[in-house]
């Protein structure tokens, strides 16, 4: 049984370790594809130059320095199954990771494909975001100068050594947690192996086998058992990868696999040897006819404390991730309806504020409204910092229009229409009313606070999706829970173009649902020369949705493993105590004392240890991971109760089993 357990744990470690290595390799593919070595981020501040010109300049820069410059972007249509690479310059980059055939990309990640696209075909994909490059220092300097010249900021990502990267994985990521916990499960199983073999080890010492040989042989035995499971796990992983991602992807993973196997076997061998040394049989144990249970108890207690601490680290994060993923799924459902929507950037927005341009701008918005191609959404509180008194009970103050609400909030579900509850202006609390009384007349055509076609609503649904100011620069969206909604039926009729609609479209808070309609109108308007780019603004949200989807799965796996580890550590602890107290159990129970009364003193100690661990662990986890305090408290309480319950059941079960075995005279 214990042999099978060690093999099984070896297999679990292999699976999670390879998934971690796979994830890292996949991340490297995405962050540094096609032999690139460095990454940087470009933020577009207020450039007035058209995107086409910027792209051409960037291409020229790449050619001039013989560099490689690429940008990995999720595909707008298939965000979770397609990732494209946009390349710059005139020489198409090549490399083995990821695999590219006829401009079709096969990513390591199963069922994720993509296309290699030249920058001239990047379309509405924005220029801001992360890039990967291979090039000289001179190229980097030239890039920085180019960005500076075009009012864009550039930040090169810091490079970290591989061990530091993996350390962060182990502590901060779901899959890293899963590896750490499965290794901990391995340690627990190894301790149980030593407990069950303690008598045999003592007898071997008594039989004249040197201690060094006992340590060596036992370490070899355990490592051999673990390796069997480990290689079965690896084989399963490679078969799956071969089927899911293609046989040609296996070679990319081969070298990382070799490193993983060597590292795992080396670390395991050292750890097993250390445990063997810690619980080595001694002559005094032989004279007392006892195995060194005290050391085992120490190890067992350490394992228990560690298992609770790990659970405290993982469980709140898992719940947070699950909730975040649910929110993101909702968010994505909203983005799904807006995935074709675009925003516009102006090359000289200030130049539009005159009698020549303003009528054209007004015509443009009127036409967009007529063709049902305009949505308005902005969290006012993010644009204008409002204090708590002004916010009152609301978490956000939102200005939006009917089109946005119907597209993103209601979607296909007409029942959700009831979630908007109209309120009167006088129902709003005084501080906010005062603020709106000053602000709204500036925004409205009539100069009124509440002109016709504008109303105030509260929201009683799950979440109300809102765009933050500067949404076009990739700022994350807002899920308002209890907003005050200033709902405008027809923004172009109600709101001033100069003081509201134009600035809103410049900051990305007016979006156009159909790019083709927008382009056809702009192409016939002189306004086109003032537009620097037409960009999709969903890239950032889609990328995060992808990442969260993967990560939340690993957190769930880590969470499940954590509970298994806690159970295993509890069982081991119970077995150790029972091994040490078998006579006590037999004697007391045959004297009519119930099992629950027999185990009460030790259970009391376990509860004290658990309380201390949960308290200290909770503080440490809070300082490392900063989970929601209430969530951490609840998780701690649930884990504590589970721990006590598991221990109680474990102690009772093994006491009964021991009693029965002693009645059979099975030593």
């Amino acid at each position, binding site marked *: 049984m214990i042999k099978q357990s060690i093999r099984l744990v070896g297999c679990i470690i292999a699976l999670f370790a390879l998934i971690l290595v796979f994830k890292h390799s996949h991340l490297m593919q995405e962050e540094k594809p096609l032999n690139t070595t460095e990454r940087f981020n470009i933020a577009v501040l207020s450039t007035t130059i058209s995107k086409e010109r910027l792209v051409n300049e960037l291409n020229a820069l790449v050619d001039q320095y013989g560099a490689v410059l690429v940008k990995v972007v999720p595909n707008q249509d298939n965000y979770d199954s397609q990732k494209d690479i946009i390349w710059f310059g005139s020489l198409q980059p090549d490399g083995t990771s990821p695999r590219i055939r006829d401009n079709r990309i096969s990513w390591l990640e199963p069922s994720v494909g993509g296309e290699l696209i030249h920058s001239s075909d990047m379309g509405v994909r924005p220029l801001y975001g992360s890039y990967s490059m291979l090039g000289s220092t001179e190229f980097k300097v030239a890039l920085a100068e180019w960005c500076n010249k075009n009012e864009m900021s550039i930040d090169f990502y810091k490079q970290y050594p591989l061990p530091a990267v993996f350390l962060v994985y182990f502590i901060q990521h779901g899959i890293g947690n899963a590896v750490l916990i499965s290794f901990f499960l391995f340690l627990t199983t190894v301790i149980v192996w030593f407990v069950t073999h303690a008598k045999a080890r003592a007898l071997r010492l008594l039989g004249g086998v040197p201690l060094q040989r006992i340590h060596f042989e036992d370490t070899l035995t355990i490592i051999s058992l673990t390796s069997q499971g480990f290689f079965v796990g690896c084989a399963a992983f490679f078969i799956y990868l071969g089927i899911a991602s293609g046989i040609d992807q296996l070679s990319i993973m081969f070298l990382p696999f070799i490193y993983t196997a060597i590292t795992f076997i080396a670390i395991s061998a050292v750890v097993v040897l250390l445990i063997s040394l810690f619980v080595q049989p001694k002559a005094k144990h032989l004279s007392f006819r006892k195995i060194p249970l005290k050391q085992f108890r120490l190890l067992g207690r350490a394992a228990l404390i560690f298992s609770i601490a790990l659970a405290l680290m993982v469980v709140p994060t898992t719940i947070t991730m699950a909730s975040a993923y649910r929110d993101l799924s909702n968010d994505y459902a909203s983005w799904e309806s807006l995935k074709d929507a675009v925003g516009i950037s102006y090359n000289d927005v200030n130049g539009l504020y005159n009698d020549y341009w303003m009528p054209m701008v007004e015509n443009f918005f009127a036409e967009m409204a007529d063709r049902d191609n305009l949505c308005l959404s902005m969290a006012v509180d993010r644009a204008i910092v409002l204090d708590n008194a002004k916010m009152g009970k609301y978490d956000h103050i939102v200005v939006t229009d009917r089109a946005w609400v119907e597209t993103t909030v209601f979607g296909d579900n007409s029942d959700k229409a009831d979630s908007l509850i109209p309120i009167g202006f006088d129902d709003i609390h005084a501080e906010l009313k005062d603020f709106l009384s000053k602000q709204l007349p500036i925004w409205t055509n009539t100069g009124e606070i509440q002109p016709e076609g504008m109303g105030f609503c509260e929201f009683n649904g799950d979440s109300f999706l809102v765009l933050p100011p500067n949404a076009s620069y990739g700022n994350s969206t807002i899920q308002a829970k209890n907003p005050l909604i200033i709902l405008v039926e027809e923004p172009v009729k109600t709101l001033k173009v100069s003081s509201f609609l134009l600035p809103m479209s410049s900051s990305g808070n007016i979006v156009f649902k159909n790019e083709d309609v927008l382009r056809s109108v702009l192409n016939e308007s002189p306004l086109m020369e003032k537009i620097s780019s037409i960009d999709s603004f969903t890239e950032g949200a889609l990328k995060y949705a992808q990442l969260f989807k993967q990560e939340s799965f690993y957190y769930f796996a880590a969470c499940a493993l954590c509970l298994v580890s806690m159970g295993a550590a509890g069982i081991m602890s119970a077995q150790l105590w029972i091994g040490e107290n078998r006579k*006590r159990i037999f004697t007391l129970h045959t*004297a009519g004392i119930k099992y629950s009364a027999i185990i009460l003193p030790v259970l009391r100690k376990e509860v004290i240890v658990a309380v201390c661990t949960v308290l200290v662990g909770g503080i440490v986890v809070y300082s490392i991971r900063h989970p929601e305090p209430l969530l951490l408290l609840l998780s701690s309480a649930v884990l504590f109760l589970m721990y006590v319950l598991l221990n109680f059941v474990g102690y009772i079960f093994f006491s009964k089993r021991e009693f029965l075995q002693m009645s059979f005279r099975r030593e």
Partner: protein
Amino acid sequence: MNIRANNVSLSINGRRILSNVTLLAEGGKMTALTGKSGSGKTTLLNCLGLIHPIDSGKIFVDNNDVTGWRESQRTLFWKDHASFIYQDYGIIDDETVSFNVSLKKFGNNQGQIKEVLEIVGLQGREKDKALVLSGGEKQRLGIARAILKNASVIFADEPTASLDNSNRQLVVSLLKDCANRGAAIILATHDERLVAECDTVVRLGT
């Protein structure tokens, strides 16, 4: 208290250990379960003591059928009426002699404990750890527990095994005293001298 077994049978791992055993152990008498090693003496003792479930047959305590008793009923029987003496695992080594007699940490009557320890020849050893006791002393400690409890039935597994002659005689005489006080003594033993001193003898494996 009388303990009666009617056609008790038991197999363990497919091996027949007890086959249609019938016996009566009466209060005030010593009943020996004897036979070769592996004949099922200890197993039968454990079955009669309700520690071990049986496959078929019936066990009666004072004419009450106790075969199907639940765990809670058996625990109550052990608490109120029975006492077990096992040389190997009836004593908790890392506890004191005093604790091993009463099996209670608190609320003991120290006077009574001293009294019974004096009866079994362990006076002044109350605070010693059981670990330091010899085999004979441990057996006597088990008997002291039975005396303190005033057990109606005493189950003793090999009470004279590995004891020197004087210790052996002391243990036998203590068990006889318990029987004289009315307790039913059931012994699993292969010590023929002890068997000869018992009132009833059940030979197993014949």
